[in-house]
């Protein structure tokens, strides 16, 4: 119990930016889904079991059109393809996480992944419990916010336009921290260049998968110099 408290206390501050982002995006999702005529239970269930921000917004559209499970499945794979990268880079980190592992894999959202990549876990804190609390707290924020949006959507009258920038800012800050932590900037620059190029070429709806392919190709070609640069 004492150990859990310690892990919780160490994890919580890292999740504050995600809490802000998830609260507002979750509320927006709840409002959107109820506007399609779905009871708030559906919003909560989707946030518990799907737990993928952008996919749930797409899902709200799918739920507002005729039944087509195969189409829904293919769209899900495409929208969430970037998660493949998250699993690949967590193979080593999640090794030995035992009973926490299935949940850590299930909860691998963009934001949880980013925090797990960037947090320095204090030496005196249980690593598995720390990672669990990062994932679990983020999940709670998301579910609570979706419920709030679905139940009280119409009560939010103050303007929150632009609040979703909190996620952009979070990823930017992690990008800078990573930049400072490495001598070789080829991987970071590859990510930016490949994504911008593919966004211009393929447009906002279709650029993720080509970007992933291009990133893998570039990292493969530059493997020698990247590995050498960090020695």
């Amino acid at each position, binding site marked *: 119990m004492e150990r859990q408290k310690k892990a919780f206390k160490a994890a919580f501050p890292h999740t504050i930016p995600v809490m802000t982002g998830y609260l507002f995006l979750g509320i927006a999702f709840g409002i959107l889904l109820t506007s399609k005529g779905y009871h708030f239970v559906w919003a909560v269930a989707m946030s518990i079991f799907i737990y993928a921000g952008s996919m749930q917004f797409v899902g709200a559209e799918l739920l507002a059109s005729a039944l087509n499970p195969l189409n829904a499945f293919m769209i899900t794979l495409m929208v969430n393809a970037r998660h493949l990268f998250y699993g690949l880079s967590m193979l080593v980190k999640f090794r030995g996480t035992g009973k926490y592992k299935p949940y850590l894999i299930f909860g691998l959202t963009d934001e949880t992944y980013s925090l797990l990549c960037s947090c320095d876990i204090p030496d005196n804190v249980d690593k598995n419990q720390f990672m669990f609390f990062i994932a679990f707290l983020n999940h709670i924020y998301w579910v609570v916010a979706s419920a709030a949006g679905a139940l009280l959507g119409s009560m939010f009258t103050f303007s929150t336009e632009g609040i979703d920038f909190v996620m952009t800012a979070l990823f*930017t800050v*992690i990008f800078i921290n990573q930049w400072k932590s490495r001598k070789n900037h080829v991987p970071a620059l590859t990510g930016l260049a490949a*994504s911008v190029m593919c966004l211009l070429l393929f447009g906002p709806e279709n650029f993720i998968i080509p970007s992933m392919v291009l990133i893998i190709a570039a990292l493969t070609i530059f493997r020698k110099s990247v590995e050498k640069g960090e020695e």
Partner: protein
Amino acid sequence: MTLTSSEAFITVAVMALGTLLTRMLPFILFPDSKQAPAYINYLGKVLPYPVMGLLVVYCLKNVSLVQSPYGIPEAIAILCVVLLHLWKNNTLLSIGAGTVVYMLLVQKVF
């Protein structure tokens, strides 16, 4: 509701399974018991760096450079985040201030 309850249930279940599959696949292909090839370990180690760039671009994907306000609020707010972070190196401050600047810009200025 466009769909019946059972149709909606199927759709939600399919989306949940699809999402879980994208998160689980690497762990299925390379279980702890089996040593992953050096190439995969290399990718795993180096991927967080390009992914963060990809996520920043992903957040900005709907910003238009040819239509007013030409991405100016985003550019100013990101510049604030970068400069503030390089100066103070305080994660919450950089994120909080950058977001407030962005909200003021899109609500009051542009």
